């Protein structure tokens, strides 16, 4: 991964830019509840971290278990972004192999195993979509993904197909623009410039909505890092 890891864990003072949507200090999160990891629902983050230590030492059995825990999420998010199933399988498989390859680079203090894996998976999916686009002339591809298709399709899927009740409920808690900014980028694989074009909204507004949307989601889902 290319991200410099967070330093020590003590939470720094809230970022000035975050102040508007900052989470309240020392207040319980309204919808804080345990969540399943992957789709199996019974692999807890602590177990995954322990598995990772074994995988890091080349333990294939541990990797098999890690695969079972993470593959549904990895495949799910890749399909969501890439759409094409055959290509998605290729990408998802590359991601799983990458988890094996990079196991020793996983740093628990930088985030959970699930977050690490989903970050790698999403990045690869987006890379695939964008390089395919570059090859097929980005302008044209952009037009094809235009407005109504991307927008309706994504929002409809988000509304009807989300496996997780909690995520669905939290997404409903966002404003329309916040929700679209987050989902078009994350599920649609669009850059925030493309999101701005698609929604015909100024770039700074999209940046703000994306941030506010993520902050609201984070707080609604009780995400802690």
């Amino acid at each position, binding site marked *: 991964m290319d991200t*410099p890891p967070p330093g020590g864990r003590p939470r720094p003072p809230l970022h*000035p830019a975050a102040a508007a949507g900052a989470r309240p200090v020392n207040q319980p999160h309204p919808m804080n509840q345990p969540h399943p990891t992957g789709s199996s629902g019974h692999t807890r983050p602590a177990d995954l971290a322990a598995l990772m230590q074994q995988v890091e030492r080349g333990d294939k059995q541990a990797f098999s278990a890690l695969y079972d825990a993470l593959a549904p999420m990895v495949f799910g998010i890749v399909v969501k972004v890439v759409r094409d199933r055959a290509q998605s399988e290729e990408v998802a498989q590359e991601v799983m192999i990458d988890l094996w390859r990079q196991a020793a680079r996983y740093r628990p203090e930088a985030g959970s195993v699930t977050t690490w894996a989903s970050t790698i998976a999403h990045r690869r999916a987006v890379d695939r979509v964008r390089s395919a686009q570059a090859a097929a002339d980005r302008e044209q591809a952009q037009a094809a993904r235009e407005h109504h298709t991307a927008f309706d399709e994504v929002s409809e899927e988000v509304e009807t197909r989300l496996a997780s009740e909690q995520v669905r409920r939290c997404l409903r808690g966002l404003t329309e623009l916040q929700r679209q900014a987050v989902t078009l980028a994350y599920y649609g694989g669009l850059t925030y410039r493309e999101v701005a074009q698609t929604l015909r909204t100024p770039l700074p507004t999209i940046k703000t909505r994306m941030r506010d949307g993520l902050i609201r989601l984070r707080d609604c889902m009780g995400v802690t890092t």
Partner: protein
Amino acid sequence: MNQHASDVHGLAAPYALDALDPAERAQYAAHLAACEACRQDVADFRATAARLAASVAQAAPELMKERTLAAVDHVRQLPPRVHAAAPVPLRGVLRRKALPMALAASLAAAASFAGLAAWQHQEKQQLEQRARQSEQRLDAVSGVLAAPDARTVHGRAGNGALTSVVASDLRNRAVFTATGLPAPPAGRTYQLWLDHDGTMRPAGFIRQDGTVLLDGDAAGAAAVGLTLEPAGGSPQPTTAPLLLMALPA
């Protein structure tokens, strides 16, 4: 903190959602190395995005597991990345070493862009590939700046440019920064050198103002030199150095 600070901070969300263009992504990655607040934001946002990913989980194709397990038999695992005890914020490093403000700004902001502008016309795929390479170089640059043994030397080149070298024996790398370096005469290029026991070894090029990671071993180098060479560079200096900065042992 530079003028664009608030703009740059605002990119944590699109960064965490992989929604930045390659150039912006590289710029923001450099910023992250220096900004604890943004690292925390990105960690939060990625954890949030992970929930979005988990919520669309679905059974992977059946044969995928078999193929994956068969494939990893032939895949070598990477060794752990060696980290400094704790990444020192860039600003802290610069303050401690009392780098002049102009250079500090140059290091913090311009580092990421050395060379990026020239890529604008490259093929898109190459661009992404190179953006990735540039990120790796930025990692290396921040690694040097954050190294516990990083030491800084300042200089003034014959043509008036202000320069600094940050070197780390631990990382075995050195970073060179120039401010106020005039464009080289036509057909000429600025070439950097590392002095090892009196031998000047080629250490890369610098186009104009900016920050570059020097090629070659920095540990044990006695000095960093800068010369004007014919375009394409030379195997050894062919002109009197504009600058020779001794590195403290």
